[in-house]
């Protein structure tokens, strides 16, 4: 792979750590030649389609596949009866059926799959699978989950997590209370779920090309369901069109392999957009209750909270989403006394799991609304109040963990507040830039501006005792470096970072990133939890250091000098006596070096019965200031600007960090004002991009960002993961700004036009 072709010929040399390195896959991507999982082709391949439940909760009386089998072009139909191995899978525990057999627990649950020679034939056949249901009363209200009949043998409670810190009876001079709610958000990646499975000729193994966030954990789940040894199932990452948490769970992987093994032919499957809404988990909707106590000077005394997350029909990662929601429920503030109870429950709503921000987004909406309420009650400036209580190095979190690394929260807050504001709204502001945008419906005199502020912090890496290590392999063959790591590149730019780290460590410019797979290299862990820069970055660094050391010791041997006398000076290896002076590329010529290393972070602990413990590895803080214009009559909001300072440890590729910030802000703005999967009676009402809106170029505010670089001890190159923080506090900042503009309480996201219009109508009377 070349990084110096096309428009990049101006680069003097290949970029290293800390520089704006270009993507090694960029040229292919701009030319439309990058192969995503939906672009794959194999000779003689069939097309798969899934049969999904049309009921929310029902007993399955019978499944008749004869009509499907009789459809011209159909080769195989598989159901629960055909699952060769474990009938269940799942991330935090396997409670989700590959295919529903006795009961369906949510709308769109897979019941069967079909493979045919044309996708339309497969879909037609799928529509001819006749399922007879006996409807059951659906459990739709999460508040009823704990008292209702269990809708699954494992019960309706995914997790209850209490947090008790300090004195539960402590009280403050000023007390504010509030209830809040967040809606169900979709990750809405653009590249649909898709893959290609190719059976081994003997039928006792399968190769799967797939978009995922964690190849090895997919492999283990797929192998278990297929009843095959893990090494008989070989996964290769194909191009991934975004992920944001939605590719952590299995979707079509097992179905695809079953079809291919049964048909004895390659099978490709591509969800369409509507199916994608049923094919992956979403962000948990939440109901939150908070009571904050503070002294008159604004010092927080106690936070009480109750958090309820609706996990939908299956467990997915609900256990750990709740761990995060509760751990960070008081926000980035020093709170000596904490009383939290939190629950994640099972219902017949669509299953929920990982999405960028992973539980912290929900509680942040609550704690930041509370901080503003508290500031108002005290008559304090909201930014000052946050500064006064800002968490930092040496302080303890709600979970009793002392922050031993960096967490410059005060600086994050102060620098966000100091960023320049956008120009005032004037009579010359073009209609297109007003609320309603291209609808050109705004009445300028009825548009009001508001400014809001929010701060947050979030953990990096997996938590609660999980050792989410990563593996990397560095091979130097006659001066060409090949780095192999199973880390899923989902768009974030890890492949760029691999090149930067390898060049930085090895001082050799020719670096090739090998395709990620489960055959040639061990697990890299998941591309989630803002962890790959640290974990796989660390593994790549360690493997490259080992390879470099081998090259240098071989050179010492050849040159008859002590290894210790050789030092790296820029791109050269030189000995103190001047006898050796060569480039690393020359030193590596004629050598083949192959080193594999595993990287582990410092161990963490599970939370105890009081929700206390050193459960998290590291933290990153961020703050957002939002400026909005609101059309008071139509309830339309235009987000004008988001300003943000983010604690990044060290920016290894500033342009890529900026891209993560802007992209994360877009998703936070989306949740604030437009994004919600509307679920009515357990049914998704807006499973399309026509009805589920994500921000367009016209919706997107200007984003002004500032990076706070305090290198994190223990992190490779001092860098913290940057992917999730931008999404966490941008949502509450926007809502705070809308509150400022409208004077309304607005306790739920997304804020819809009717919330503003009706809210104003009811406060006027």
């Amino acid at each position: 792979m070349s990084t110096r072709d096309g428009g990049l010929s101006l680069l003097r040399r290949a970029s290293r750590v800390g520089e704006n390195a270009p993507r090694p896959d960029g040229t292919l991507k701009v030319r439309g030649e990058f192969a995503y999982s939906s672009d794959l082709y194999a000779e003689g391949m069939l097309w798969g389609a899934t049969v999904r439940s049309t009921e929310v909760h029902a007993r399955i009386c019978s499944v008749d596949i004869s009509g499907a089998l009789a459809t011209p072009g159909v080769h195989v139909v598989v159901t629960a009866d055909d699952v060769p191995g474990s009938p269940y899978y799942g991330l935090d525990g396997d409670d989700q059926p590959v295919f529903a057999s006795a009961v369906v627990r949510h709308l769109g649950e897979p019941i069967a799959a079909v493979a045919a020679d044309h996708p339309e034939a497969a879909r037609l056949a799928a529509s001819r699978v006749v399922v007879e249901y006996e409807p059951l009363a659906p459990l739709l209200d999460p508040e009823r989950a704990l008292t209702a009949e269990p809708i699954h043998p494992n019960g309706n409670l995914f997790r209850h997590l209490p947090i008790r810190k300090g004195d539960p009876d402590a009280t403050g001079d000023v007390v504010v209370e509030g209830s809040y709610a967040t809606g169900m958000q979709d990750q809405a990646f653009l590249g649909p779920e898709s893959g290609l499975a190719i059976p081994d000729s003997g039928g006792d193994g399968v190769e799967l090309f797939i978009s995922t966030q964690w190849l090895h954990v997919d492999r283990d789940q797929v192998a278990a369901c297929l009843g095959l040894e893990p090494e008989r199932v070989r996964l290769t990452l194909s191009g991934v069109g975004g992920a944001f948490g939605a590719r952590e769970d299995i979707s079509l992987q097992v179905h695809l392999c079953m079809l291919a093994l049964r048909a004895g032919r390659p099978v490709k499957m591509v969800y369409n957009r509507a199916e994608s809404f049923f094919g992956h988990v979403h962000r948990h909707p939440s109901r939150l209750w908070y009571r904050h106590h503070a002294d008159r000077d604004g010092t927080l005394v106690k936070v009480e909270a109750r958090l309820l997350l609706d996990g939908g029909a299956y467990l997915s990662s609900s256990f750990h989403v709740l761990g995060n929601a509760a751990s960070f429920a008081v926000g980035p503030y020093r709170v000596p006394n904490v009383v939290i109870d939190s629950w994640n429950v099972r219902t017949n709503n669509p299953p929920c799991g990982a999405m960028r921000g992973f539980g912290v987004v929900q509680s942040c909406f609550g704690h930041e609304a509370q901080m503003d309420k508290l500031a108002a009650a005290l008559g304090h400036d909201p930014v000052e109040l946050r500064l006064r209580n800002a968490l930092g190095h040496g302080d303890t979190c709600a979970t009793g963990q002392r922050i031993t690394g960096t967490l410059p929260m005060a600086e994050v807050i102060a620098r966000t507040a100091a960023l320049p504001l956008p120009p005032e709204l004037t009579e010359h502001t073009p209609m297109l830039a007003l609320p309603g945008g291209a609808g050109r419906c705004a009445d300028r005199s009825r548009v009001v501006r508001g400014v809001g502020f929010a701060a947050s912090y979030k953990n990096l890496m997996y938590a609660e005792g999980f050792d989410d290590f990563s593996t990397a392999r560095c091979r130097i063959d006659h001066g060409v470096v090949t780095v192999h790591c199973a880390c899923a590149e989902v768009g974030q730019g890890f492949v760029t970072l691999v090149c930067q780290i390898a060049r930085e460590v090895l001082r050799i410019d020719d670096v090739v990133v090998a395709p990620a797979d489960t055959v040639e290299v061990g697990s890299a862990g998941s591309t989630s939890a803002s962890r790959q820069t640290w974990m796989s970055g660390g593994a790549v660094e360690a493997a490259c250091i080992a390879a470099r050391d081998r090259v240098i010791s071989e050179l010492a041997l050849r040159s008859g000098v002590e290894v210790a006398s050789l030092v790296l000076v820029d791109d050269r290896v030189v000995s103190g006596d001047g006898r050796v002076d060569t480039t690393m590329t020359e030193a590596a010529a004629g050598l083949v070096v192959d080193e594999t290393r595993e990287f582990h972070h410092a161990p963490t602990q599970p939370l105890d019965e009081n929700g206390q413990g050193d459960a998290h590895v590291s933290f990153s803080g961020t703050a957002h200031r939002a400026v909005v214009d609101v059309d008071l009559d139509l309830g339309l909001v235009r987000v004008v600007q988001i300003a943000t300072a983010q604690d990044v440890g060290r920016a290894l590729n500033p342009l890529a960090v900026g891209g993560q910030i802007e992209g994360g802000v877009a998703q936070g703005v989306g949740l604030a004002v437009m994004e919600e999967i509307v679920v009515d009676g357990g049914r998704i009402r807006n499973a399309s991009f026509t009805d589920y809106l994500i921000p367009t170029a016209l919706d997107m505010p200007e984003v002004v960002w500032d990076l706070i670089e305090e290198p994190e001890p223990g992190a490779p190159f001092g860098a913290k993961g940057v992917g999730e923080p931008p999404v966490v506090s941008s949502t509450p900042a926007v809502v705070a700004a809308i509150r400022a503009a409208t004077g309304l309480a607005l306790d739920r996201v997304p804020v819809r036009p009717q919330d503003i219009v009706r809210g104003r109508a009811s406060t006027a009377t």
Partner: protein
Amino acid sequence: MNDEPTSHAVTPEVGYVLRVNGREHRIEAAWSGESLLWVLRERLGLSGSKNACEQGECGSCSVLVDGRLVCACLVLAASAVGAEITTVEGASPQGVLTDVQSAFLAEGAVQCGFCTPGLVMSVHDLLKANPEPDDLEVREAISGNLCRCTGYGRIFAAIENTVAARRGAES
């Protein structure tokens, strides 16, 4: 999910010729309901046009049909007979990136890249019609191209730089 699909199994098959990126392609025994996007991707192997929604909402399938920017997912392939179709594969035929493509790379406008081919087509179309668009004109012109990764900021920067470079090249 609830739509009753129709299939090639129940409708007549057709054969026709499409002219794509200056070359004629014969399509044989195709189901007449196939979209231009599907035919480009699956019958002609031109998978640069993407399939993020297949319902005209995302712009990832943007192509030119007789010089007009359209969503290939909304065009019946058989209805494009006789038209000149240009896809992203035809945007940089000689292997040299266009200025727009280079600017996307230099400005970090590409993350997962699923939206990128459609945006490349849209931006070329915009700059052809309006070589000096202001910020809002850019936003409006590409508001039919969804991107879920970038928040568009780097994309705006790439367009701005292309415009500036073209202006510089002219003067």
